[in-house]
């Protein structure tokens, strides 16, 4: 028979387990297709941030119909972490930024669509950022 003490312990353990969800980023290499007719506007190579290792290239491209923009991360290799996001940022730190969504994979080629028409002369950095713990993994200056 379960005692009251055991019941409480069980409830507490269940709650703590539910609270601890640190989901790592998928590691299956990204295989997104890049529109070969798209125009490359800016490009930059990633450098490591204080909390991670990031290698690869970031490119802002304009679709062939000139109607939409995307950020392409090419030949990426990123140390894994929880809650990694891709930002377009005004600063090399994620102070003012546009969140393009969760990082799809720690490697390969990935395409992230950019909504609207940001001023790319202001949003000059692509960042890989661990949102939950506010840790910058890497940045690329887009020129």
């Amino acid at each position, binding site marked *: 028979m379960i005692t009251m003490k055991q*019941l*409480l312990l069980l*409830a507490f353990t269940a*709650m703590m387990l*539910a609270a601890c969800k640190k989901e790592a980023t998928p590691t299956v290499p990204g295989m997104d297709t890049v529109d070969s007719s798209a125009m490359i506007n800016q490009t930059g190579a990633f450098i490591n941030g204080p909390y991670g290792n990031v290698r690869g290239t970031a490119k802002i491209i304009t679709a062939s119909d000139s109607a939409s923009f995307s950020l392409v991360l090419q030949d990426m290799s990123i140390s894994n972490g929880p809650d990694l996001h891709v930002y377009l940022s005004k600063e090399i730190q994620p102070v003012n930024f*546009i969140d393009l969504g969760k990082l799809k994979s720690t490697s390969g080629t990935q395409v992230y669509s950019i909504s609207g028409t940001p001023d790319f002369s202001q949003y000059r950095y692509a960042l890989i950022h661990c*949102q*939950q713990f*506010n840790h910058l993994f890497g940045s690329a200056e887009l020129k």
Partner: protein
Amino acid sequence: MKKYLLVFLILIGGISVSSAQQSKLPKVNQLADFSATIGSSQQSLAASYIYNWGVGKKRKFELGIGLRNTAYFGVKRDFWTAPAKLARTNTTPFLIFFAGQKTENWDTLTVQRAFTNSLNVTANLGYHITNKLYAGFNIDVIGFTVGQKSSAILKSNGSTKTEPAAKPAAFNLLLTGDHDLGTLNSEFFLRYNINKTWSVKGIYQFLFVEYETTTIKQTAPDGTQNDRFRNKANNFGVGVAYHF
């Protein structure tokens, strides 16, 4: 609060069962109460000391006070603009419950790892439905909160910014609706007495949690600078009480 009372009275009215063999209830009921609630990406644990007085001839009603420690945990929870004058169309006390929402002023602070620990004086209200069943409501009135600073994301006026160190609001005070300050816990519950010493309960919890930004602020359309953001959690849970 008015809504709470209405629901509470309906609950009592709906399930009230007269119990002919109900024994005389005590003048004073003292309890140590422990509860746990869970919602979407958030949980709370609470420990309370409760001191209730039996009211009326049969002492079926209870009124009382208590002291409650509530720990709240949340991951990537959205907190919205808190001050009543920004959040509501009418800020008259009590009428604020029926006021419209000024959603054009609402900005979102997503606190990444919220943790607050509050100590509040509570007000308690309840009714003995039968010898075994008791329906009640309690609410935090005044107290203080300590907790963990957390990074947060502020979405305001079409821009997204990082707040590196959002912190829990330190002072808690029950006023009315969005006039409330800080972290305030309240519970509707139905308690079942296992024996004279132990009881268990099912809980519907309404919990206000407030965080403040420290480095960036929301600028409302009227120019008001705001650093207060509130999460309103509706959780379900269970509890156990020891009767002294």
